[in-house]
């Protein structure tokens, strides 16, 4: 029964996502693609950025798209559903444990994140031209990073989606998303922060750091990156912690 309902819930999300595909692409891909155009195409050709920068940036862009697609797909519908439309209530009345509905949202977020990576990687590579050191030899690791990264940010989305009210959305963008993106080691490697020791360790609270570094480990392993056990350990711990917070928030919002 639970598996069948889970499938029905996933199918519902797929149908709705398919109808909103243009909006989803714009909101998750716009910023990274523009960044690729400026920093991966224009500035290197102008000679203002060394061409090798592409090697640093490509995994970061993949990480950014993954996280944005995952978190948006979970947070925004939840804020709207719990805060305004109450649309989720028919799903909360399904004869399955309430937590299953939350877990399905997270699963759906991981899938959307993975789809975003599948689209953005070839697009970025195409725009940037040759990326020295890029390899697709580590597909299992790439897959693992995508799943774990999607899980961390979908769980984070579950937490934010149940903790925030609709009027908090713009604040969330400025206070949470903007610093997270800038200090997420997407546009520079974590090792690059060696010159800024305080910052280097402060950014470790940012989940995006581990996904950016994980993408480097998978896509450009020749570039110096955070040790893999540290990356995987942090991603698993963050998933568990954020999932716990997210489920707690979901239960609170779902049952009065």
């Amino acid at each position, binding site marked *: 029964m639970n598996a069948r*309902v889970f499938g029905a819930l996933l199918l519902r999300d797929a149908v709705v996502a398919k109808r909103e595909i243009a909006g989803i692409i714009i909101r998750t891909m716009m910023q990274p693609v523009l960044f690729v155009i400026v920093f991966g195409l224009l500035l290197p050709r102008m000679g203002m950025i060394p061409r090798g920068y592409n090697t640093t940036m490509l995994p970061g862009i993949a990480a950014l798209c993954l996280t944005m697609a995952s978190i948006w797909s979970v947070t925004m519908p939840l804020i709207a559903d719990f805060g305004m439309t109450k649309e989720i209530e028919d799903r*909360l009345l*399904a004869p399955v444990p309430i937590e299953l509905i939350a877990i399905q949202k997270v699963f759906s977020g991981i899938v959307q994140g993975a789809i975003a990576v599948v689209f953005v990687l070839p697009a970025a590579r195409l725009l940037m031209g040759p990326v020295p050191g890029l390899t697709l030899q580590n597909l299992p690791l790439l897959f693992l990073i995508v799943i774990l990264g999607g899980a961390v940010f979908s769980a984070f989305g579950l937490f934010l989606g149940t903790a925030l009210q609709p009027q908090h959305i713009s604040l969330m963008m400025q206070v949470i998303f903007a610093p997270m993106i800038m200090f997420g080691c997407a546009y520079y490697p974590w090792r690059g922060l060696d010159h800024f020791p305080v910052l280097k360790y402060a950014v470790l609270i940012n989940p995006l750091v581990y996904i950016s570094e994980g993408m480097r480990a998978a896509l450009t392993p020749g570039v110096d990156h955070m040790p893999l056990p540290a990356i995987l350990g942090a991603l698993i711990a963050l998933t568990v912690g954020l999932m716990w917070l997210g489920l707690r928030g979901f239960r609170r919002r779902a049952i009065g």
Partner: protein
Amino acid sequence: MIQIRGLRKIYGSVVALDGLDLDVAEGEMFGLLGPNGAGKTTTIGVLTTRVKATAGTAHVAGCDVTSESVAARARIGVVPQRPNPDRGLTVRENLVFHATYFGIPRAEASHRADALLERLGIADKRDAKVDELSGGQQQRMMIARALTHEPRVLFLDEPTVGLDPQARLGLREILRDLHTQGRTVVMTTHYMEEADQLCDRVAIVDRGKLLACDTPAALRAQAPGETIVEVTFDRELAADAPEIAGVTRTESRGTVLRAYAPSAAAAIPALFAFAESRGYAVRDIQIARPSLETLFISLTGRKLA
């Protein structure tokens, strides 16, 4: 079908339910009547597993709503106060997906959705977006959706609020129809005549407490005072309240005399006799039988809406 014992719900410092006891029999059309803030929606919330009671127990179709909430949800259908359709889906998809959330195979779900849309008179809107529906049509869709998994109990929270009179009448027809098919229906309302006309039994609640529970006729009989006979004369009445045989007491305002009487049949001839003796001509006469409204006012000291 439903048993509620000593149900309490406290939100911070607000007591929403204060030791509520209720029983609803199978096949009954049951009304929860009370003003805003009476605890009607909280009661529905607890019974539909969406609100956790602070104390007390509630069973729906044999399931404890707290410890067996999953099983309880399989047996109930809910039409919320404010329509909350899935706006990303079409009308028909709303029904089909809802059924599949209850484990019903897609083919069967589609079949049921079509039959229900037909029955509720919105089959022509099946492929429309939800936002294209009028308020009344949305409410019909919500009822159709709540029925797709064939629940044993249907809960409706203020189903006719915000609808125009025509849509309201149409919806009442639908509710009557559901009732005649033997389904247990629990609805909240703050419209007296709605509870009176539709429900087998009505519970009057206020401030989280049950004040009275009986058939509408029996509740009306409990209403204090009597039938009200309002007579309009051709000119203003003298200030004194006249003594009239068969009338308990009278109030006069302008040309209108309001008489409270145990029986309208006895009071009306006496009122005509009174008019004749004083030389008044009767212009109009209206009879108001004891109503749930008068009972409600006597029980709570305030009006319903």
